[in-house]
């Protein structure tokens, strides 16, 4: 696809519907966006010991992220250097050598070919051992424990790529009384029958909630009216989708380079209950009362690291967006535990994940239906409106579509470059 043809798909306030439905455009997105950008692949807490590994995907390639014996983190194509069989089937584990199940070739934790059976069979054949390892991805880098990899050898370094959006990850880490996070509490994997971009375009959308979540909002209000006593966390999370437009209009949405964005406010994250006070006191012991207040008042409800990573700093959630087909996306959800925080703080993180991110959550199921209807409705030609708030000066809010227009600026930047 020529740069002109790509550019013709995107206008300042609308996009061609084919960007969500055309398999050829999807293939190009994998090649030009997901294979070039920094993609989140693991958290360092999953890779404590040499040989600890997790498996994931980068631009549809199966990848093993593994801590090498020298302590560095490597990302390897999960593919045997012989016939190409997928070497590691598990989602996580520990191995000092990786062994292909087919002919038993083994590889070191940096991907180098270690041993083959019947090595004398290769004598005098011109077989180059160095060409038959598990191929390492050109670049792996960590930012405060968040490990990213890229299939591209060239491009901005990770810190430049993150830009101001890196502050979101900083804030997540700084919320931990010991200044460190770890993956804990299991994971969800949600199947979405929609293009990956439809999910990203909902992340800071304050307009959909009242219609999409009408049933669960009204159900939670009706039940809340029958209750006495202290507020109920899960009930509040569900009911929060029902805040009026004028309140949604006060939520600031910040747009950054490379398509990243974050959203402020939504729910206040400094609570006054005794459990939260205990946590805030633990945080203050390390960084002082003013420091703790500053970290907790930096209320970024959720953030997007374009194109495939989203975080909820206030509730310590990670979401990894994995595009599988033009109309099929998997979203993985992980929880982080704040080291040094009282145990009940992690229980809030888990309760938030259950209420909002579970594939069986009464909030999420209605979102998934809306995304699928969008995908189904785009079978013909035409334009998709991104007009809301377009061409206006001033800061954007959750009622604007500026963050989506910002995503398409990044999209064009990647896609135009052949």
């Amino acid at each position: 696809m020529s740069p002109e043809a790509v550019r013709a798909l995107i206008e300042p306030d609308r996009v061609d519907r084919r960007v969500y439905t055309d398999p050829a455009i999807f293939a190009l997105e994998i090649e030009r966006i997901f294979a070039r950008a920094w993609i989140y692949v693991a958290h360092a807490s999953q890779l404590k010991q040499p040989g600890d590994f997790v498996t994931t995907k980068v631009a549809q390639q199966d990848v093993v992220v593994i801590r090498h014996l020298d302590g560095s983190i490597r990302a390897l194509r999960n593919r045997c250097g012989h016939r190409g069989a997928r070497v590691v089937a598990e989602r996580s584990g520990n191995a000092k050598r990786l062994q292909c199940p087919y002919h038993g070739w083994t590889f070191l934790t940096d991907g180098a070919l270690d041993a083959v059976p019947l090595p004398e069979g290769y004598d005098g054949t011109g077989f180059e051992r160095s060409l038959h390892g598990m191929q390492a991805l050109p670049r792996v880098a960590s930012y405060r424990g968040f490990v990213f990899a890229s299939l591209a050898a060239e491009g901005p370094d990770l810190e430049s790529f993150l830009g101001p959006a890196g502050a979101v990850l900083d804030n997540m880490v700084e919320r931990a009384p010991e200044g460190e996070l770890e993956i804990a509490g299991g994971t969800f994997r949600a199947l979405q029958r929609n293009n990956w971009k439809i999910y990203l375009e909902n992340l800071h959308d304050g307009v959909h909630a009242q219609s999409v979540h009408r049933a669960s909002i009204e159900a939670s209000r009706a039940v809340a009216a029958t209750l006495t006593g202290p507020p109920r966390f899960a009930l509040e999370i569900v009911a929060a989708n029902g805040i009026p437009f004028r309140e949604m209009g006060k939520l600031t949405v910040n747009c950054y380079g490379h398509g990243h964005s974050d959203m402020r406010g939504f729910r206040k994250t400094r609570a006054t209950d005794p459990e939260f006070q205990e946590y805030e006191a633990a945080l203050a012991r390390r960084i002082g009362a003013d420091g703790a207040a500053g970290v907790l008042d930096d209320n970024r409800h959720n953030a997007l690291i374009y194109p495939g990573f989203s975080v909820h700093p206030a509730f310590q959630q990670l979401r990894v967006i994995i595009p599988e087909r033009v109309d099929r996306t998997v979203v993985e959800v992980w929880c982080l535990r704040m080291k040094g925080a009282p145990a009940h703080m992690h229980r809030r993180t888990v309760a938030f994940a259950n209420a909002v991110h579970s594939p069986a959550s009464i909030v999420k199921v209605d979102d998934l239906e809306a995304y699928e209807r969008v995908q189904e409705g785009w079978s013909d030609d035409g334009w998709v409106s991104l007009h809301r708030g377009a061409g206006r000066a001033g800061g954007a809010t959750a009622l604007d579509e500026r963050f989506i227009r910002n995503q398409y600026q990044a999209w064009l930047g990647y896609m135009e470059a052949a």
Partner: protein
Amino acid sequence: MSELAQIAGFLHQEAALLDERRFEAWLDLFAEDGTYWIPASAGQPDPLDHVSLVYEDLTMLRVRIRRLVHPGAHALAIPIRTSRLVGNVMLVDGDGDRLTVRARFQLLEMQGERQRLFAGAYTHLLVRHRGSFKIRQKRVDLVGSDATHAAIQVLI
């Protein structure tokens, strides 16, 4: 009637209430402090420190049920029909008034033309109540609890 037959009858009745969408009657089977739990991984040890597909008390179950019957639930604009079989009922622990019961289930779900099959194990913690039982906890261990799931709207 043997005790095991009485327990099996209770589980069959519970399944029938869900298939017949008599959700309020289903909720009445629970004790006031009852919980409904669908773990998100096999052998998940607890519902508080690990994520669950569902872990709800009666308050949240009331919200869930109200959504299921709400005319504005757009994801249910095409209604979901279910049929479930419950079998292999075993009393694994019985201590006076408190019983632990295991069973296997298969649940067929149809929404429009889309068909899904869920299967797995139920673990019911029951207490005796007026000649029958109340549910203190219903745990549903799906085969493939940690698999990738499309939206799950039915009570399992």
